[in-house]
């Protein structure tokens, strides 16, 4: 049973200059397609990872999943409810308490003027719930001390703050937590602590994670299924075993080759061609074709659709 179902999700941002500048400089509107027709499903109690480089649209998808952004077209259904179009306020409220998010920057994601206790229980208190002793209980569950509830965020290190963020995310007893680069601001040894904690909590609370990351090693360690994004498009989706052992899409291959390896002493990686193109004017057809070593004419002309290939789904004309 899938908890999340995303259908041809698209988000366009208007990044034009102000109206007057446009008129004077005779420029057209500039539209940035951050996410383009993305489909995927996330099974309950699994971890789905979205991986990609900057401009891949992974964070935009995350924000649409939790309802911080509205899709331009397409839809996100969580437990069969579409937050963007649902009109029943009670249903929206119910779904909202099922969804939480953990952010990248542990220094910006806690209000510096609030005590940790108030931060953690806000999701409950905002709904008028009773939160007596809840913060203390949650703090202990995330490996901090109940005595920390009365402190302010500035007294904690980055890793501890991320634990506080996790405690806040847990307080409304959610089913789904979207984790946007949860460890990329943390040091390696602290990252291990946070990833282990996330795994434990997933088992204990029956959580579903959507993990957004640029770090292939983290994704491989955590995910049950991985979606690779390039320039707002889903290009490949597979289980970690298939993705790393039997890579289908040339972009994924390039990414895996380029990532530094702990055992790659003196390795001369095969260097990626070029850089990520401008998302305002993406290449025609397959967005990856200018950098693709195996591109043919059809790749310039026609955008490949996602098709199943074994247990993998891939959007490439030539993958086999």
């Amino acid at each position, binding site marked *: 049973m899938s908890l999340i179902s995303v259908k041809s999700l698209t988000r366009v941002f208007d990044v034009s200059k102000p109206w007057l500048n446009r008129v004077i400089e005779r420029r057209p509107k500039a539209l940035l397609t951050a996410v383009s027709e993305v489909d995927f499903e996330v099974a309950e109690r699994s971890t789905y990872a979205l991986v990609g480089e900057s401009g891949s649209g992974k964070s935009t998808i995350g924000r649409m999943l939790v309802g*911080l952004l509205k899709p331009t077209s397409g839809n996100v259904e969580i437990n069969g409810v579409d937050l963007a179009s649902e009109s029943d306020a009670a249903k929206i*409220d119910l779904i909202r308490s099922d969804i939480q998010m953990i952010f990248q920057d542990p220094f910006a994601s806690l209000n510096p003027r*609030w005590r940790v206790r108030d931060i953690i229980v806000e999701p409950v208190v905002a709904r008028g719930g009773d939160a007596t002793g809840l913060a203390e209980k949650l703090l202990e569950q995330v490996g901090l001390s109940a005595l920390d509830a009365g402190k302010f965020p500035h007294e904690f290190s980055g890793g501890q703050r991320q634990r506080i963020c996790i405690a806040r995310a847990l307080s409304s007893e959610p089913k789904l937590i979207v984790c946007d680069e949860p460890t990329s601001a943390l040091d390696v040894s602290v990252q291990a602590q946070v990833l282990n904690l996330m795994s434990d909590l997933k088992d204990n609370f029956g959580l579903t994670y959507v993990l957004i990351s640029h770090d292939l090693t983290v994704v491989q360690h955590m995910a049950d299924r991985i979606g690779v994004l390039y320039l707002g498009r889903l290009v490949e989706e597979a289980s970690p075993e298939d993705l790393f052992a039997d890579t289908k899409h040339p972009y994924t291959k390039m990414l895996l080759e380029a990532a530094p390896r702990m055992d790659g002493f003196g390795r001369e990686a095969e260097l990626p061609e070029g850089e990520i193109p401008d998302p305002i004017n993406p290449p025609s057809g397959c967005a990856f074709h200018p950098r693709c070593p195996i591109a043919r004419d059809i790749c310039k002309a026609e955008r490949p659709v996602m098709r199943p290939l074994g247990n993998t789904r891939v959007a490439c004309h030539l993958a086999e």
Partner: protein
Amino acid sequence: MTDMPIKDAPQKVVEQSRLRVFLDSDVFYMFKKSPVAVISTIIFASLVLSALFAPLIAPTNPFDPASLNLMNGFTGPMTPNAFTGESFFLGTDDQGRDVFSTILYGMRVSLFVGVAAVLLAMVIGITLGLISGYVGGWTETIIMRTADVQLTFPSILVAMLIFGVAKGITPVEYRDQMAIWVLILAIGLSDWVQFARVVRGATMVEKRKEYVEAARLIGRTPYAIMLRHILPNVLSPVLVIATISLALAIIAEATLSFLGVGAPATQPSLGTLIRIGQGFLFSGEWWILLFPAVTLLTLALSVNLLGDWLRDALNPRLR
């Protein structure tokens, strides 16, 4: 260096009070280390206290006609009066009022008008700044363009305009009573723009931070987010502006009163006293002008220095 906190060791429950947090903060530490800040705080505090307790400190009530003796008029400071033999610390004015007492009472009016005007400007400015920064779009355009237009006029002109209009619509018999309130309204309305601009800028920075997103995510209303989340985090620049504005408001009040459109002679502020005093300057009774003027200067300067120091302390990037 030796007391390494050990994770499992029982710690004392130390719930830091906000006062404790403040006393431990870098700002308070910097305050202690800055002689300018400490001295101007002491001066400002003693001026405020003496204004507050004027009825207890002042030797006479200068506005009680019964206590006045016209014979005491034009007594020089610290010299006994030629007719009555009474001596006054800072002398007396033409009607025999003790200058020291009038200054204490005048400072009350000046400070009251200044503080009230700044509070008014703060409430208007913070509200409009929060709304325009958080909501954006057309709301922001309208509020901020209005602010820009108002900024093109000197604020004293705006204040005089508001004062004039307000005076025109109040009935004659209430004018003296209303004068103080009109003054507050005039200065407050001419001063909100700075607050709005600073709060809008800070709000735009804060609203992109992830703690605000976390609050939006759980369905908190924009009203709750602005008030509970953003407002506490934009208050430090507001504090700086408020302090500097207080000095400006006190001077603006003095200017208006000096020009004769401010506090009435029945409730004289420092500005009114200076206006009255300058009439006697050329006849040699310099003290009637000098002492109120020095008080005004000290008051405005101490507030201003405090504001400058606050700006440096709270905003390290400006140094």
